């Protein structure tokens, strides 16, 4: 399984954060009549095993020109059953592997003041490998 390892200066405080490229999923690209990757957006994403689904901050997906393909509700430590939309995206990882999936767009104000623009949840992690080596201040992710 192709993988990549990141050595973080302050893994304990910042957590396992990766840079991903978001673009319309293959099905969305075809519907938009586009070739190549189409519009893209970059995001700093925290690998979060406490998240059942992947989520991006409100507004991050704006440049992609997508419309919602689903709706769900979310629970957080401070709120219950907040309605959110789902979008069909391609998530490309630092080692070039990609995954077409749906992501939740968080409500306005969510993740404000954080060093991240999204969470990589167990819906994506179930397809791959995640190793957290705290003593070496590094982590490995594979898909």
């Amino acid at each position, binding site marked *: 399984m192709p993988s990549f390892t990141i050595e973080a200066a302050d893994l304990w405080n910042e957590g396992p954060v990766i840079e991903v490229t978001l673009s*319309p999923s293959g099905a969305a690209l075809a519907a938009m009549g586009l070739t190549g990757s189409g519009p893209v957006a970059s995001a700093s994403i925290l690998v979060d095993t406490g998240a059942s689904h992947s989520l991006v901050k409100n507004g991050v997906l704006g440049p992609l020109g997508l419309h919602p393909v689903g709706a769900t509700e979310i629970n957080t430590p401070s709120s219950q059953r907040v309605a959110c939309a789902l979008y069909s995206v391609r998530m490309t990882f630092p080692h070039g592997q990609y995954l077409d999936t749906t992501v939740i767009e968080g409500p306005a104000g969510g993740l404000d003041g954080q060093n991240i623009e999204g969470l990589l949840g167990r819906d994506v992690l179930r397809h791959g490998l995640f190793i957290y080596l705290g003593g070496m201040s590094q982590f490995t992710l594979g898909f």
Partner: protein
Amino acid sequence: MAVIEQLACELELYDENRERLLGESLGKYVLIHDREMVGTYDTEADAVAEGYRRFGNVPFLVKLIAPVEEPANFLSPQVRF
């Protein structure tokens, strides 16, 4: 909640047909656009692909047919809304 309003019609149609769908297609994903219930699919990806193929890049609803709708859960205190 403006973005969810884009799917208000589809969510309403799902609610109207929920009991029938639970009986006929439990565990599958239903595809709904406007007031049309297109069909049910084994995977979310199949339903999304069919939605784009039929309707293009417009809002449509793909929803898991389940007796209890489980919300997505975020345990980290970093997620505050």
